[in-house]
């Protein structure tokens, strides 16, 4: 076996993962989840629902109008409405209700996406191919429409599909999201959110309208989710099953790994999460003979590792890598 080949594959894969639009979309969604869970203490177990709503809202609108900006607006409005529908009845109640409602609502959205009755819009189980809605975005590119560009081992289209143009925009949005979340959580507004996470009644007794703050937090975190959905489907295609409970679970893993309630936690956590996945996939694929583990079994094994890893993380380092042990968002 060629060890050199193993390492060169591994590092190329690391690089392409670190550049990947999917990774960027995870970071953005995790930033939203961090505002919910890390800073406000809202147990949203349906962040995938916001991602999915952003994805469908954008893709369906652009598919029928070929208007990129209209698609973005529809995606964002849908996320705001979804947050209000989930939040208004539950945010006055105990935290557990929000958890139940968000996971249920996200599942309902996913099932609706798969539903054949809505297939003229959603494409049913087949989803919506990227080609149906990605043109208007490619058209905004300052680069030539056709052609590839190679940088080291990375060779991607300039403007079309999963392109350099999309990568630049996606990571630009990541940077912007980090700046926005930094400004938000370091502000007096963010301080009230952290207070709510600690003790709602104390914050009420100090004259703050807790329900309004929680609703604002849910909306803003949800908007990040919807943006993540747009970014994600521009690189791939729309498919409801890619945005289910598993996605929410992955986002929590990223967030907890990097450190909840920290500004850079979602970025660091998502990188690490994907690098570990790639490492496991490549390593198992390379060193374990296919007689023992077939190609199909590798992702499953990786998942088991990730699950165990998450458990160990929560037990031994609940504050994540960047987090402060005294300010962790769960337990005492």
């Amino acid at each position, binding site marked *: 076996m060629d060890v050199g080949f193993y390492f060169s594959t591994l590092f190329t894969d690391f690089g392409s993962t670190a550049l990947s639009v999917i990774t960027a979309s995870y970071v953005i969604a995790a930033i939203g989840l961090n505002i919910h869970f890390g800073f406000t203490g809202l147990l949203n177990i349906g962040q995938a629902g916001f991602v999915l709503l952003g994805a469908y809202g954008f893709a369906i609108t652009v598919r029928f109008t070929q208007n990129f900006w209209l698609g973005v607006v529809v995606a964002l409005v849908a996320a705001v409405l979804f947050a209000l529908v989930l939040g208004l009845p539950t945010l006055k109640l105990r935290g557990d209700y929000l958890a139940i409602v968000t996971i249920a609502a996200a599942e309902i959205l996913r099932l609706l996406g798969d539903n054949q009755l809505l297939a003229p819009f959603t494409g049913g189980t087949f989803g919506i191919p990227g080609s149906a809605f990605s043109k208007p975005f490619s058209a905004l590119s300052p680069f030539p429409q056709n052609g590839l560009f190679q940088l080291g081992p990375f060779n991607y289209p300039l403007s079309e599909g999963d392109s350099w143009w999309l990568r630049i925009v996606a990571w630009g949005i990541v940077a912007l999201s980090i700046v926005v979340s930094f400004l938000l959580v370091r502000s007096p507004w963010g301080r009230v959110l952290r207070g709510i996470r600690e003790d709602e009644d104390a914050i009420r007794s*100090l004259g703050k309208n807790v329900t309004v703050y929680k609703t604002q937090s849910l909306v803003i975190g949800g908007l990040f989710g919807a943006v993540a959905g747009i970014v994600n489907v521009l690189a791939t295609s729309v498919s409801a099953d890619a945005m289910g409970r598993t996605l929410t679970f992955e986002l929590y893993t990223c967030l907890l790994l990097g450190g909840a309630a920290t500004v850079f936690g979602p970025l660091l956590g998502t990188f690490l999460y994907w690098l570990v996945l790639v490492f496991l996939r490549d390593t198992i694929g390379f060193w374990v003979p296919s007689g023992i583990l077939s190609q199909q079994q590798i992702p499953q094994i990786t998942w088991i590792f990730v699950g165990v890893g998450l458990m160990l993380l929560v037990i031994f380092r609940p504050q994540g890598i960047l987090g402060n042990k005294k300010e962790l968002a769960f337990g005492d």
Partner: protein
Amino acid sequence: MTDDDYDYDRAELRKKLDKVDEVPGSAKPNPILTVDRITRRFGGIAAVDVDHLEVQRGSITALIGPNGAGKTTFFNLLTGFDIPDRPQNGGEKPHWEFQGRSLASTSAFRVAREGMVRTFQLTKALSAMTVMDNMLLGSQEQTGEKLSRSMLWPLWRGKEKAIRAKAEDLLGRFKLLEKKDDYAGSLSGGQRKLLEMARALMSDPTMIMLDEPMAGVNPALTQSLLGHIQDLRDRGTTVLFVEHDMHMVRFISDWVIVMAEGKLVAEGKPGHVMQNQAVIDAYLGSHHDQDLGDDSVLDEDFATAVTQEDAELVKEKEALEAYADSVRAQEGDEN
């Protein structure tokens, strides 16, 4: 922020209170808070059942009563943390007003915005935040707490500085200044009480409601805090507080309200109310007839209680032994 209606002169205030009838629910010359028909039941028991109460503006009023009298529940009702029962068979609705504005069915945060700020008997320090952050949250003037302004830091930076200075001043008075960058979770029980009180004062409340503010605070600091509370009053904050320590009640209050089993049983000047028969009954049962402010009574009472309890324990033990003997005898018969 001076106010013509407020008795900045304490002697003046006491003179006015001298003329008030010492009966439960008596009218005050200048009430800041008026409560009518407020009841709250938990299962069978009426935790609070207050017909009428007025609190004099500018006074330090103590609310006393035995454990379970309903003092905390009463605070919760007034401040919007609990909801009073609906009147049965078409009676009149509960009503209470603060500075002439009705607070019935007002949510807790609005009550605080109206200037009536409370603390909790079981402290609610925000453990995973620093002492300073706790204090800053107490202010109601930081417009940067609005989402629309939060990201535009030049809009709120100046205010933040002013609030921080005020917080440091208060922390100094409450002997917490060295702790300002520590997490509130690392404070001792007494320090948390102090932090909560200091935090409540950040908004310059018109009236502050303290639920056992001195529980767990060391005596030396208590002295200086009592001074601070009186100072607060002199500068325009009406104080209503719950306290079990009769010495403290006597020392700083202008007026005392006594609750027992949810009802107001007595009201009056601190020197008088402790001698009121209804109060003594409420605290000690009906066979005592002495002044509660005199601590030898409480000590004696404690001693009698202990002797009584001992006697009962001895009796119980004897009964148990007798029973054990009878069981053994029976077993012996069966064998």
